[in-house]
């Protein structure tokens, strides 16, 4: 314990982070999680005195965008400590060992820390044709996922591909790509952290939450933590006032665009997308997609590549432009509407079938919020 404590203190010093700043970070984290600020001290204690839990990061049909995103964790000095507080024993993008020495490291974790380590999965899992579309060390992604996630204390699906199948699973889903939930039915303790890629801030927060409380935060019906996915982008959008006032961008670069008016007519999917982008933004709070002038493409929602496209077609069904629009109503109408527009294209059939299957599966699945609980 003392060793861990002095290690963290030394690391904080090396990074020029004062004790006060560290505690302030922990309180901020508590606030982000909608917890009483007094819990900041408890978070700090867990970070300082906990053993370094082991985490393995698996990449399947991925682009490494989530791995890259995690390297961009905001509040840099402290968020990176969150990285260091874990022992990342397997991560193909950054690990020194290669080949059988790498796979041996993974096997060692599964064997020695059965039921105690965290597994992160990035990328979808292709199950068609015996899994030949993704092999690592000669083994299929599905076989690896079964073994590693099946023996983990918990699995975090990062990014939209692992959470929902994502781009590889978009119609016509050539490789039978599945989300972790669909590839490993019955997997307990699975958390989905969608978005393309996951926002590093949210992932860091989730891990700290788990280390602090030893259980997961409340989840919604898509197994997403509500602290990050509980509200529609539209609800917190800095351009919302322009939507309510009926002030819209009509053409790229027009005066309304330069003035930061609402991007609804340019195709914004903010009304039907649930994520906290407007609050935490990206890259140390520097900006976010709508902030830079481009509509939201709905990347945190299931099947967004099929249901939110064409990206520049505006959402139908908004009952007039103006005050007091019921966003939930908008949401209910729109996803169907965009999919309907897309049905003009031939590729939609398989996507729709997959959607119905998933809907049925979601309805049959146990409601997940119970997995969380109060601190």
């Amino acid at each position: 314990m003392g060793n861990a404590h002095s290690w963290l203190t030394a690391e904080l010093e090396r990074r020029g982070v004062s004790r006060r700043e560290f505690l302030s970070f922990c309180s901020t984290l508590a606030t982000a999680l909608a917890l009483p600020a007094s819990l900041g001290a408890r978070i700090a204690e867990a970070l300082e005195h906990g053993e370094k839990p082991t985490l393995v990061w698996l990449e399947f049909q991925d682009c490494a965008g989530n791995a890259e995103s995690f390297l961009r964790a905001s509040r840099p000095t402290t968020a990176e400590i969150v990285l260091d507080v874990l022992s990342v024993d397997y991560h193909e993008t950054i690990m020194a060992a290669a080949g059988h020495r790498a796979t041996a490291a993974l096997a060692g974790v599964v064997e020695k820390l059965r039921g105690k380590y965290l597994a992160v999965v990035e990328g979808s899992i292709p199950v068609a044709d015996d899994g030949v579309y993704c092999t690592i060390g000669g083994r299929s992604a599905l076989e690896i996922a079964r073994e590693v996630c099946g023996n983990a204390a918990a699995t975090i699906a990062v990014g939209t591909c692992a959470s929902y199948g994502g781009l590889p699973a978009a119609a016509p889903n050539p490789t039978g790509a599945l989300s972790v939930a669909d590839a490993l039915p019955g997997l307990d303790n699975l958390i989905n952290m969608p978005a393309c890629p996951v926002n590093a801030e949210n992932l860091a927060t989730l891990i700290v939450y788990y280390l602090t409380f030893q259980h997961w935060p409340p989840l919604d019906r898509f197994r997403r933590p509500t602290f990050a996915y509980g509200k529609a982008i539209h609800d917190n959008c800095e351009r919302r006032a322009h939507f309510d006032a009926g002030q819209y961008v009509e053409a790229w670069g027009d005066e309304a665009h330069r003035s930061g008016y609402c991007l609804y007519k340019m195709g914004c999917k903010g009304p039907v997308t649930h994520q906290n982008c407007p609050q935490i933004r990206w890259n140390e709070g520097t900006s976010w997609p709508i902030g830079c002038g481009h509509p939201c493409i709905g990347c945190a929602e299931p099947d967004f590549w099929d249901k939110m496209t064409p990206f520049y077609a505006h959402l139908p069904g908004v009952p007039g432009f103006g005050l007091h629009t019921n966003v939930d109503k908008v949401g209910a109408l729109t996803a169907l509407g965009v999919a309907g527009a897309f049905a003009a294209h031939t590729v939609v059939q398989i996507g729709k079938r997959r959607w119905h299957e998933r809907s049925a599966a979601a309805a049959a699945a146990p409601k997940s919020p119970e997995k969380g609980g109060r601190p």
Partner: protein
Amino acid sequence: MTRVVVDPVTRIEGHLRIEAEVDGGRVTDAWSSATMFRGIELVLKGRDPRDAWAFTQRICGVCTTVHAIASIRAVENAIGAEPPSNARLLRNLIIASQVVQDHVIHFYHLHALDWVDIVSALAADPAQTSALAQSISDWPLSSTDYFAGVKSRLQEFVERGQLGPFGNAYWGHRAYALPPEANLMAVAHYLEALDWQRDFIRIHAVLGGKNPHLQGFLVGGMATPVDPDRQASINMTSIQLVRDLIEKGRDFVSKVYIPDLLAVASFYKEWASYGGGVGNFLVCGDYPEDDGPQARLYLPSGVLFDRDLSRVHPFDGDQITEHIKHSWYTYEGGDDQALHPYQGETRPRYSGPKPPYERLDTDAKYSWLKAPRYDGRPMEVGPLSRMLVAYASGHERVRQLVDHVLGQLGVGPAALFSTLGRVAARGIETLVMAEKMVDWLDELSANLTRGDLRIHDNSKWEPASWPREATGVGWHEAPRGALSHWVQIRDGVIANYQIVVPSTWNAGPRDAAGVRGPYEEALIGTPVADPEQPLELLRTIHSFDPCIACGVHVLDKSGREVARARVQ
């Protein structure tokens, strides 16, 4: 004769497997195999071509801008949209910052551990490390106390017994040649570079909303409005922020990356004689300096054959073909064919072993990558190709820096055709681009001052303004080399989409004539002291900066269902 298999090759993007024959301590033959396939081009069929950039962008989250750029250029080329000057400048800034950040991450976080022994750093004397650092650079973080702090942090990390991503590696391997002090300095800069990259890439957040997967792209221009008088646009405040980030970036590159590169390289000069590869280099060129299709390019296009720097051949996209004789695809007209991307077809047909497997049948098909050829020949693409073509074309700044680096290391231009040459060229390019960025920022600023606020060609936004049928190609020099997207549009939707990617050029398998691809050829002759620890093999493979998710792609030109894979 020993068969060495490295799978997964780590510290890369994507899933790569290398099999090599080692005889008498040297690689005598090698096979490069990509083991993951998604089929993104198939997913693109029938979609709005204005959406394609977001789909293709997700091919890779490491080089997260490159497929977006190539895609919007391809569609613009097809429909005749002309992005205005501000969009060109914003794109140049985004592309250059991607290159700078990506190369630094590659050097420190993906490649350094092949040259730097972290455990050896524990034996370093902080005072001597400080003296070493101060002898090669005036970078301020160089005191004895600073390096003592890094060392004690490392000491505690190792003593805790949880080495995390540094566990199970090749520490103590006799191919590691750096003294402990150089290792400690490199470890310190590994950590600094982690912080630096996160800060520097905020340029992408300012210009594109976020990174990875920035979102400010549009067919016909950019979605980031510019206006000096508005808060919601790129204004003088954002330009100043980008200027600060560029300056900090340039400082890090010139005062940390380049001195480290020279210091490390001076201990590994024998690597200037390994990893030569195919000796043919292809560059499509990038960074338009003016508007319109015939713009002058800051980094010129060109082709070099047989390591001959005296003759730069003009680059001609018609000379590109792709082979699939050793790839898990089939061609309707037979697998010995070589097809140009516009005629390209891709029918995945897996014929490798059923997983789990130990060995691939490398006499047959063995990779999800195709084998691109130019004028029938395998070509290397990437920073080395770009710097060689620029050097041979008389690019002033590139010539200065290449000559400077060669002089510092005391080697001649022939040393460039090597593993070490790739490492050096990547560093040189990083500095060239970090220095150049400020010119484009000044130009953007001048446009704003003049009242030129255009960011988009609205005239071609609506599909009604497009021809019924159109084809286009988008060229781009990605961090890892020449990239091209080929699109065919019919009735407002994508009829065909084909991508020829840097890592396909470099990591592809043998062609129909049995000629090796660049990775495979570069491995021939590489020493391997211990087949159980093929560290040297990783050095050469990593010198190409593999990005395998990018390399694997598929398109069925005629719109048929993908053939069901057959498993032997």
